[in-house]
């Protein structure tokens, strides 16, 4: 059943670097007749600290978030990784804490954006754009933590002018991994270099993903290779931005 209203959690990466993805996601949701509530006190899900082993610090930040969603309505997040943090790791993070029940209430209402668009809103999209070939990168957290790996393809399948090209090693990690990219730069670099090669080999002009962490990593490598090695740089966009651009009149 389609909810009347939802909470939107934009994520810190979108807030600071990719706000257009956030705005597009809100517009997609609103167009389906859903009232979007964006609590202005939101900051970050706490994942960077959680993955670095700083659990107390992560909990402090997470605690500030769980208070922002008091109504029993869905919480929609345009990122598999932040959604995975709230849905699967908040229960661990708050285990035995006085506000464990609040954390569980939040975790149970979390949806990743493409999952919500497909499974809950059952959107029907009309393609208004030019013919384009697109490669899809599904983040590891969307694939394995959230189990929503096929949702982007389901959405793109509705767009008559979009041709999805599949790259080799599609399910392999792009090498971002948050602090991994900083703590193991050589291994991370080898991973993202391979990823860009496989995507470029499809000939797709465009890459979409549901996670801005992966996009920052892959598009950063594309831009670097364009500048230093004269290679082509497919345009990289968050799926929300791509969908909104192609479907709004």
């Amino acid at each position, binding site marked *: 059943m389609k909810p009347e209203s939802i909470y*939107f959690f*934009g994520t810190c990466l*979108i*807030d*600071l*670097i990719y*706000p*257009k993805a*956030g*705005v597009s996601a*809100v517009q997609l949701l609103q167009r389906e007749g859903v009232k*979007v*509530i*964006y609590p*202005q*006190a939101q*900051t*970050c899900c*706490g994942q*960077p*600290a*959680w*993955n*670095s*082993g*700083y*659990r*107390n*610090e992560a909990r*402090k*930040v997470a*605690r*500030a978030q769980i208070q922002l969603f008091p109504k029993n309505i869905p919480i929609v997040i345009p990122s598999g990784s932040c959604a995975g943090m709230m849905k699967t790791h908040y229960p*661990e993070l708050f285990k035995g804490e006085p506000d464990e029940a609040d954390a569980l209430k939040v975790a149970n209402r979390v949806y990743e954006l493409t999952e919500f668009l497909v499974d809950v809103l059952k959107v029907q999209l009309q393609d208004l754009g030019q013919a384009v070939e697109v490669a899809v990168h599904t983040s*590891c*957290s969307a*694939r*394995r933590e959230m189990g929503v790996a096929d949702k982007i393809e389901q959405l793109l399948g509705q767009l008559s002018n979009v041709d999805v090209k599949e790259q080799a090693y599609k399910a*392999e990690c792009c*090498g*971002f*991994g948050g*602090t*991994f*990219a*900083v703590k*193991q*730069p*050589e*291994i*991370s*670099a*080898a*991973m993202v*270099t391979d990823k860009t090669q496989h995507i470029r080999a499809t000939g797709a002009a465009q890459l979409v993903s549901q996670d801005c962490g992966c996009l920052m*990593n892959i598009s*950063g*490598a594309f*831009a*670097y290779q364009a500048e230093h090695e004269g290679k082509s740089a497919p345009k990289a966009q968050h799926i929300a931005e791509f969908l909104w651009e192609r479907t709004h009149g």
Partner: protein
Amino acid sequence: MAKPTEFRVDVEKALGKTEIRAHFRKAMDTLMINRRNQFPDDAALQALRTQAQAIRANALSKLPELLQQLETNLIKNGVQVHWAETTDEANQIVLGIMQKHNAKSIIKGKSMVSEEMGLNHFLEERGIEALESDLGEFIIQLDGETPSHIIMPAIHKSKEQISALFHEKFPDIPYTDNVDELTASARRILRDKFYAAPVGLSGVNFAVAETGTLCLVENEGNGRMSTTIPPVHIAVTGIEKVVEKLSDIPSLLSILPRSATGQPITTYFNMISGPRKPDEKDGPTEVHLVLLDNGRSRIYSDPELLATLRCIRCGACINHCPVYVRIGGHSYGTVYPGPIGTILEPQKSGLSVHGELIQASSLCGACGEVCPVRIPIPNIINRLRYDSVRKDTENTPTQEAGTRRKSLEAATWKAWSWAASTPSVYNFGSKTATQLRGLVPNNLGAWTSVRSAPKLAEQTLHQQLKTLGVDHE
């Protein structure tokens, strides 16, 4: 306490030449494809994983009782049981048995626990020859190396390298790069050794408490020969390898080779239930089992870390790891490489020695997705990262917990948590940052060695949605 070691890998050098890296990737790809082909029906795979997980979890939940039962039944079967808390004790036990028989050589089937013990080195220092009979182990022993994979120890070597190695070590044998001929040569060399060796050694895949049976999975028959031809057989294994019942075996045997090499079943499956009986014509006259702890009971004491001990050493997590495929097994500097090594080694030997390994993961989850006993490897890595910087070190059995806490890093996270839990501070900071975005340097160290620096937006999402009038109750 040992000085914390650093783990930094030069990917270009780790596996050597480009061709070797490509060969290695292809080998891993084949293993992944073979595994996938063994499990065409995902529902059936998930059901089998659930069974395997339950069998291993059940065994661990009664570990002390099952170990006692195992010992009782092994003794009934005529097997001599030895307990070793440390690898040194385990080595001494093996040495003691060898000395009793005045044995100067030992022929070995594949055993990762013996690698853990450093047994070959230990025996060689005492004038005892330890000869590996598994083909992969034989190859790396010739080259003075250690295994780079837990089930395919020589997977890092190309056919050409192996041909050259054989030619160098056995000049009498004509040079060939034909795999069958190389295998045949190794077979011939080993055959005589089997008959000459006074003692054979093997690992154990499953030890059945109910019947006192030691199960051994293998492909080459060298395991059967190591355990049946020499008059004395010594099996070494970790205390976690016990399962409760004989009826637990089929599920585990069904999922192990399929996950490991993508074989429906291995060529050999040995069930060892004691030494030769008076009316029997062959088999060893003495069978020993050495049960090694080496930190396992410490892992056992923590309900979250305990899952590590469910491992059946199939290697699937290694085959599917995007880090392992790029750096190879030796880069880890451990006995067990890849994801299983990443969680097991720091727990075995403390966070000082191998604690940096836990940073060598993007937490992509490919390992946990294929693990036949559903060990949540990324979660355990996360937990060990916590252990490595936590202050309440008394609440974890992990040794040297907290020793990787660096004051600058800790202070940074503290400041971050204050800012990100105080909306006014966060909003002020993010707004200011975007306003000053021109000042963000283009050189961000490691990040910008292969990527351009990300650019902050002109206006944050907070600001834009406010302008658009999106509700913010």
